[in-house]
């Protein structure tokens, strides 16, 4: 990325924070056998150290398990080899130089177990055994790094690329005034889909580089508007979100039945929702109040029998705006 050199003196970004916790998560999700090396170069204890050197060189490895009669009895590493070389004793059998006290890890354990051993015992590699204590592989810190990177690449590349692209949208497209409009059709009575539009809008805003605080406020406001359309609007309605770098304009439009008394509808606890809907936990009479709390401006235009248009606006502070100011703005708690 183009901002790479700045990274050191920057405060950690949300993106980076996500990535760190995702790495930790992966250490618990991935199992040792998913990243270990299976192609073992097992060495017999009688093998001469000189031959071990050849094996290491050919296989480009720096250590191998020592196995006698199918049983793991030690590990021989490059350091052991150097010791033998220093003592001009490369004719000696592996048994003389290998490390006997062998720590092992179970193949089915999560990566974190191997990481703990690496951390505590300062070893470079660990033989991996199955439930019957049979040697099935070997794991190094390098295996863990590449395994985690692979998994990260797999599930993060897509989201990262999306975020990266979306975040630069407002910088990359030049106009006197650029805005992005999102539209969602909301069906009457579609409770199971309730919250879909708001989730999508929240995610879109985060991708565009909005602060978590702004995304949350929009999410809550849109959720309530969405549920109002689902519960009250005769034919459902439309949610339209216009995003500009410095402000977000949201509209919820329907064609009926309209609000007879807007002031009354604004009163906390007042609701016209039928009992069947209240039983589901909706119709608390808090919707419009909740929306008002989350936005900077709210405007309700309603004609009984004709429909309702709810207009909401969130203004971003200069340091919160999307686009070129985005990089400064990615730390949570700034608001």
């Amino acid at each position, binding site marked *: 990325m183009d901002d790479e050199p700045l990274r050191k003196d920057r405060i950690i970004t949300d993106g980076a924070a996500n990535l760190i916790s995702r790495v930790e998560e992966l250490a618990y999700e991935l199992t040792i056998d998913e990243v270990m090396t299976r192609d073992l170069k097992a060495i017999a204890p009688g093998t001469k150290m000189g031959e071990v050197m050849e094996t290491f060189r050919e296989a480009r490895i720096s250590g191998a398990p020592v196995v006698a009669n199918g049983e793991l009895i030690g590990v021989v590493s490059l350091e052991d080899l150097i010791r033998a070389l220093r003592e001009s004793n490369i004719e000696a059998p592996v048994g003389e130089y290998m490390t006997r006290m062998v720590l092992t890890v179970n193949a089915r354990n999560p990566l974190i177990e191997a990481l703990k051993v690496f951390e505590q015992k300062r070893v470079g590699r660990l033989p991996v055994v199955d439930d019957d204590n049979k040697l099935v592989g070997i794991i190094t810190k390098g295996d863990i790094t590449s395994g985690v990177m692979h998994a990260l690449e797999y599930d993060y590349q897509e989201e990262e690329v999306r975020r990266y692209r979306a975040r630069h949208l407002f910088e990359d497209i030049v106009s006197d005034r650029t805005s992005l409009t999102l539209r969602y059709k909301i069906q009457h009575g579609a409770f199971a889909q309730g919250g879909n539009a708001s989730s999508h809008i929240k995610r879109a805003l985060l991708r565009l580089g909005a602060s978590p605080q702004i995304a*949350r406020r929009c999410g809550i406001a849109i959720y309530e508007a969405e549920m109002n359309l689902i519960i009250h609007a005769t034919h459902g309605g439309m949610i339209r979100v216009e995003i500009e770098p410095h402000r977000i304009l949201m509209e919820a439009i329907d064609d009926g039945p309209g609000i007879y008394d807007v002031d009354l509808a604004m009163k906390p606890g007042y609701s016209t929702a039928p009992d069947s809907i209240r039983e589901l936990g909706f119709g608390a009479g*808090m919707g419009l109040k909740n929306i008002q709390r989350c936005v900077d401006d709210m405007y309700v235009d309603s004609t009984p029998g004709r429909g309702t248009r709810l207009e909401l606006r969130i203004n971003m502070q200069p340091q919160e705006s999307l686009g070129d100011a985005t990089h400064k703005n990615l730390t949570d708690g700034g608001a």
Partner: protein
Amino acid sequence: MTTLQNIIDQLGLIVLTEGRDFSQVTPASGYASDLLSCVMAGAQKRSVWVTLQAHANIVAIAALLDLSAIIITEGAMPDAASIARANEEGINLLSTQKQTFTVVGRLWELGLRTE
């Protein structure tokens, strides 16, 4: 600060969604209500929400509010689609036969507070 793992153990909760390392999840506070708009207004980020609602919408709310977990009381059971959606959104759904009052009392004993 109590962890979600400790809460699950102490209250004998059933984990309905995918298992993860709950000892790394430290809820910031708690909230109890069955009225969704009240939850929207009152639940803080990273709260544990106690409710007997079990329909798909509770997942949407938890996702929008970044809640730590939902404890569904009195044995109410969300349908498979809701659980799948919770897994997608990374929301922890926990279930218990106990009543909301009891659960809240236990959470308070475990040190969970509202700000």
